[in-house]
């Protein structure tokens, strides 16, 4: 199968604001259910083990017309929740029987309360992820939260999930994470072969279809790019950070690469690779999942940073790991976690002599000229003198 066919397949799923793929899956069995989750991290293993199709709710992008959504939010609140409300109020999410709201920020937190009021018949759970510095306490707390969700969804499904179910799901998502790591690895080595637009579409599709299907397509894609190698271009290598919740419009990702910046690391759809290591299949699976979260070393703006040096270190580490030339801080307008973190992250990066630029977007930004121009100037300066600083 050719690269184009895989990408077109993914694009179709990405552009389908009615979640047809998920609906088709649900239609195949009477006892099938789907559970949505908002950014950033949700324990998809638990949903899967309880027989639910995990459906990532990442907003409506730049194709959704906002009619009701703006009635719920003031102009100074980010765009994501209004498009999510728009999706829900227009019936596009009516196939979900549960929705999880992770503690990404206060906007998503409050959205969980709005959901309770708007959709009293749907299972709504706000997931207050542990923020403490003590892994022991965090693990116990998170284990409790996970058990709670597992029990509730079990009741909803009329069939409690067994440890075996959960272990199977963990194994499946270990495999998914490994595949995503592989894709990122490949892009990092040969960015010209894995345009970020394509990688992104593939991962977006993976958010709304069964993990098994995603794995199959991902394998096809890897085979295809090996079969159709492309010519490297005289571009610079860039880490994009700050886009972990409200997703950038596809046009923005394209504009950055079109302007001469290969994206070699990013935090788009961060949830799908939030856990950096295999979750253990030994012992109590819920405990194992909780452990892997609490002891996970992923540094992100949505978690408290216990290490006083952590904020300064994280960007230099990521740049080194990705062999990048510079950083683009791309944050959604009014995104508290990203924008409050940015000065600390940027200071750390610039102290390490890494060139940086920053701009704000929203999921429905219509014009990319100024992004292209800034990214372009950035890659010019890297090409001409290896960086602005």
């Amino acid at each position: 199968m050719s690269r184009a066919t895989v990408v077109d397949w993914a694009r179709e799923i990405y552009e389908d604001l009615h979640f047809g793929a998920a609906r088709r899956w649900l239609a195949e069995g009477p006892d099938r259910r789907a559970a949505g989750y908002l950014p950033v991290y949700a324990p998809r293993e638990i949903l899967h083990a309880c027989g639910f199709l995990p459906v990532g709710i990442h907003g409506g992008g730049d194709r959704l017309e906002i009619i009701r959504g703006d009635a719920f939010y003031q102009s100074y609140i980010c765009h994501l929740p209004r498009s999510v409300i728009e999706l829900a109020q227009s019936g596009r999410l009516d196939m979900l029987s549960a929705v999880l709201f992770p503690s990404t920020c206060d906007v998503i937190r409050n959205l969980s309360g709005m959901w309770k009021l708007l959709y009293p018949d749907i299972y709504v759970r706000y997931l207050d992820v542990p923020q403490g510095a003590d892994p022991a306490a965090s693990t116990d707390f998170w284990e409790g939260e996970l058990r709670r969700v597992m029990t509730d969804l079990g009741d909803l499904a009329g069939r409690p999930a067994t440890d075996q179910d959960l272990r199977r799901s963990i194994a499946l998502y270990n495999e998914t994470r490994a595949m995503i790591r592989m894709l990122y690895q490949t892009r990092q080595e040969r960015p010209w072969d894995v345009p970020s637009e394509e990688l992104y579409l593939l991962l977006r599709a993976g958010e709304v279809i069964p993990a098994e299907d995603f794995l199959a397509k991902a394998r096809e894609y890897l085979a295809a790019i090996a079969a159709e190698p492309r010519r490297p271009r005289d571009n610079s290598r860039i880490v994009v950070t700050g886009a972990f919740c409200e997703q950038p419009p596809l046009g923005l990702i394209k504009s950055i690469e079109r302007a001469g910046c290969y994206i070699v690391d990013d935090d788009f759809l961060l949830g799908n690779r939030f856990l950096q290591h295999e979750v253990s299949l030994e012992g109590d699976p819920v405990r194992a999942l909780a452990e892997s979260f609490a002891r996970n070393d992923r540094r992100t703006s949505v978690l408290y940073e216990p290490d006083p040096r952590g904020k300064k270190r994280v960007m230099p580490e990521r740049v080194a790991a990705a062999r990048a030339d510079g950083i683009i801080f791309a944050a959604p307008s009014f995104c508290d976690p990203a924008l409050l973190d940015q000065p600390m992250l940027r200071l750390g990066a610039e102290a390490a002599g890494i060139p940086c630029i920053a701009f704000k977007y929203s999921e429905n930004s219509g014009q990319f000229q100024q992004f292209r121009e800034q990214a372009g100037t950035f890659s010019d300066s890297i090409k001409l003198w290896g960086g602005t600083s």
Partner: protein
Amino acid sequence: MKEALKDRSMVLQKEMIAGHFARLERVSETREPVVYTFVPGNLVELIRSFDALPVLPEINALQSGMRKLSADFIAEAERAGHSEDVCTYVKCDLGMLKSGNISPAGTRLPKPDLLLLSYTGCYTFMKWFELLREEYECPVVLFHVPYQGDGKLEPEHRAYMIRQLREQVIPALERATGRKYDEDKLRERLTLAAQAEDDLVAVLHSAKRRPSPIDGYFGTVYYVGPIFSAFRGTPEGVEYYRALREEIEERAAAGLGPITPDGPLNEQKYRLVVEGPPNWTHFRDFWKMFSDEGAVVVASTYTKVGGTYDFGFRHNPADPIGTMADYCSGCYTNLNLPSRIDMLARYIQEYEADGFLINSVKSCNSFSAGQLMMLREIEKRTGIAGAFIESDLVDPRYFGAANIKNRLESYFQMIDARRAGEAVAV
């Protein structure tokens, strides 16, 4: 304000605050440890039980706003790379720090020995202290207060908080102050806290009378000052609230209204309930827009961010650690949207309000995200139309006086017109 505000309580509060800042300025000699923490979920009794002095950054920020210092501080922080989109309390505080850390009282603020990050109902607090840590390079202890996502304090969450207090917070305070944890001292503090809380609640409830002897928003932000900041669980605090209660009860007995920027407001045309923090940079002008029209606020949610005492909670010396967990969990910003709507609807009914107003501030997503839905839900529940205005905490650029006045005028005229209509209908 007018002479009437030379009330004893006013004088006391001024002395208390001045005294506190003076004491903070002298810590280099007195060697008193300093702990920074936030208003919602502040563990001031615990801090005091270690003989440490609390500093509350939001209070400094809002006072900078009232003293017209915030614009420069915010500009300073934005020059340092902070986005115009984010919380102006944070930027105001960082700007103040970068400009020499002179408190709104004109005194120098000491470095913290510990940042006690009790992040209760506001995500930004976490970032705020991460940012302060970069500046002060001092220890931080994080106390994670789980949000009441399902509208109640879940037992596991309470246990989780108690565990953090015992295993993280108390040891951190011991390290920072070099003193041992003394539960009896804590009990004493909590006993004092509960006394002040009783008197405060009496004051808040006085607004159920007609005319209301207090303004439940503009006036009450002064009244809650001591109990939300450094003085809960202190003898000064107890004395202040006793004095305040006496004054308010006298005013009530005499059938007097509250003192406003235009003097006593005895003729009260509209009784309002208010949701959301006030704007501090134009606090007086904002208040005047109400008092000019004869509007008095009878209850507000903002005055509950430091504790929802009027619904019965009291600090309980018998269960010192547990009561702190209960206190934090119950702070207004930690309640979910349905609970906040219940609370406002209840205020409107219990305080017989003619209307309600949401002041939606740009800075604070914890408050603002969802307020438009609260507006409609409360309208549905109470059958009373609300007013919705937008401003900010301490960024003067976001206070559009003309727009706000226009909306308020229209709102009050709307209440009049409906009254007239009802009168006709009857």
